[in-house]
C-alpha cells in the first residue's frame, strides 16, 4: 500500500512563514537490480513522498526495506530504475553540494585531521585556505570540539567521529542533509546524547533532514514526520505526523503510544 501524503501547513510553517513545501519530490521511485544468480530483485518498490524545506523526516523500517537505497538515490550516488526524484523540481542525477550525506560510520579520511576532514567539501570546491580555516573553526565550535582540530579520526570515539562527519556535511552548507543510520554504531547512551546534539544543531541551522534509522524510539524523538517502510516489497507503509513539541520526553504517554503504534506496524 502506498500512501500519497498531501501536505498541510503545520505549526512550524506558521512560525517560519513561507517555505518550499516541495523541496524534494519522490515520485513512484523504485529500484530493481539483478542478482548474481540473474534474478531480478526489488530493492525498493514504487514510493511517493514530498519533503518540505526545514523539515525533519525520519524513515524507519526493518533491514532490507530499501530505506538506505531510497536515501542513496536521493543523494545521487545511485540511480533509480523507475519513477523519479526531483530536487527543487529538477531530477537528481549526480551527487552535489546542495544535498549532503552522513554515513553510518568510517567515512572520515583517516590521514586527515579533524579540521581537514571538516573542510573537505570546501577544498573540493577550490575555496581558499583562509575561508577553510574560518569554516573549520566555526563548525568545530558548533559540534563543541574546538580542542580536537588537529586530532586524527583514530584518536576519537565513535560519537566524536560522527559529530565530525556531521560538521563536515554542514560545513559544505547543503540545503538538505541525508543521514543514513548515523548513530547506528553508537552505544545507547552516546546515541541519546547525539540525538539531542543533532536537534540542537538542526534548531540552529534549520536544514532539511532526512534521517534513516531502524530505531523507532529515535524516529519518535527526532522527527517532524515519520515514514514507516515495510520489507518485501520495500515500500512506504504509512506516514505519521509527530506533533509533540520539542524537547520531547520519553516518559510522555503520547511518546510511548506513538512508538508502540509504529512497532506494531513493523511487526506485521
Amino acid at each position: 500500500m502506498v500512501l500519497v501524503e498531501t501536505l498541510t501547513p503545520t505549526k512550524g510553517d506558521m512560525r517560519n512563514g513561507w517555505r518550499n513545501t516541495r523541496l524534494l519530490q519522490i515520485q513512484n521511485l523504485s529500484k530493481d537490480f539483478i542478482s548474481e544468480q540473474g534474478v531480478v530483485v526489488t530493492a525498493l518498490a514504487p514510493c511517493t513522498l514530498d519533503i518540505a524545506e526545514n523539515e525533519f523526516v525520519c524513515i524507519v523500517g526493518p533491514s532490507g526495506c530499501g530505506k538506505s537505497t531510497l536515501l542513496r538515490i536521493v543523494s545521487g550516488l545511485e540511480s533509480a530504475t523507475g519513477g523519479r526524484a526531483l530536487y527543487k523540481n529538477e531530477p537528481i542525477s549526480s551527487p552535489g553540494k546542495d544535498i549532503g550525506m552522513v554515513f553510518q560510520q568510517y567515512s572520515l579520511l583517516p590521514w586527515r585531521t579533524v579540521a581537514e576532514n571538516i573542510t573537505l567539501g570546501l577544498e573540493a570546491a577550490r575555496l581558499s585556505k583562509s575561508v577553510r580555516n574560518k569554516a573549520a573553526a566555526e563548525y568545530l565550535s558548533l559540534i563543541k570540539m574546538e580542542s580536537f582540530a588537529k586530532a586524527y579520526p583514530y584518536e576519537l570515539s565513535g560519537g566524536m567521529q560522527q559529530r565530525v562527519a556531521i560538521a563536515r556535511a554542514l560545513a559544505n552548507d547543503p540545503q538538505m542533509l541525508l543521514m543514513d543510520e548515523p548513530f547506528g554504531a553508537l552505544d545507547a547512551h552516546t546515541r541519546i546524547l547525539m540525538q539531542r546534539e543533532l536537534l540542537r544543531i538542526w534548531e540552529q541551522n534549520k536544514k532539511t533532514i532526512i534521517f534513516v534509522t531502524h530505531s523507532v524510539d529515535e524516529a519518535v524523538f527526532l522527527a517532524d514526520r515519520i515514514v514507516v517502510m515495510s520489507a518485501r516489497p520495500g515500500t512506504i507503509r504509512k506516514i505519521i505526523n509527530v506533533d509533540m513539541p520539542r524537547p520531547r520526553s520519553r516518559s510522555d504517554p503520547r511518546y510511548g503510544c506513538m512508538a508502540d503504534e509504529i512497532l506494531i506496524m513493523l511487526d506485521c
Partner: protein
Amino acid sequence: MLLWLHLAKVIDNRLILPQFTSVAIHFFHPLSSLIGLGSLAINIFISLIRVFIGYAIAALLAVPIGVLMGYNAGAYALVNPVLSLFRPIPPISWVPLVLAWFGVTSLASIIGLTQGPWYVYLNNFKVSMTFIIFLGAFFPIVTSSIHGVSTVPRQLVESARVLGADEWFVFRKILLPAAGPTIVNGLRTGLGVAWTCLVSAEMLPGSLSGIGYMIMHAYEIARVDVVMTGMISIGVTGSLLDYFFRIAERKWFSWKR
C-alpha cells in the same frame, strides 16, 4: 655466533666453515681490496647503484600503471592478461635472453664513452642487469598498486562525492592517499626482490663486479671466508634497506592503525 665459533673449531677446515675471525676481519677493513676485486665497500656500493637504477625505473613505471589498472576496469582487463603471463617467470630466467638482447651494453656505451676513468666506472652498469632488477621489482609494485587503489573503501570515495567533489579531486585526494600505504608496502617488497635478483644476476656470466660476483669469484678460488663475508653483507644491506623503508612507512602513515 657461539655455535659458529665452536663448529669452526671442531670442523677445522676453512673450505667448509672458516673461522669466525677470518670472516669478521673483512668487516673491519671494508676499504681494503679483497681477492683483487676491489674493496668490500666498493662492491656493495656498485651493487646498490645497480639496484637503484633498475628499481627507480621499475617504480616510475609500475606505480602509474598499477594505479591506472586499479582505478579503471578497462585498463585492468587490457593489461592484466599480459602481466599475469609474465609475473610467474623468475627474473633470473630472463638472463640468457637479456644477454642476447643487450650483450655487454652498459651506461658507458649508451652515452658513447669508450675510455677514460668514467668509462671504467659507468661500464659497471650493464643494461642487462638493470633489466633483470627492473623485472624483479616491477611485479610486486604493480600488484600492490592495483590492490591498493581497488580496495579503497567505497565509503571514503562516496563521502567525498556527496560533498560535490569531482572525479579528479577524488582521485588525487581520496584514492591516492588511501592507497598510499599499500603502494609503499609494494615498493618495499619490490626493493627486497630487486636486491635478491641483483645478487643472483651478478653471479651469472657477464658480470665483473658487485657483491654477487665477488661471492662467485671467491668460491672459484676457494676463499669461503670471502663467500661468507659477501653473504653476510647481502643480508645486512638488504635488511637495512628494508628497515629504512619501515621507518618511512611509520612516519608517513602514522594514521594507519
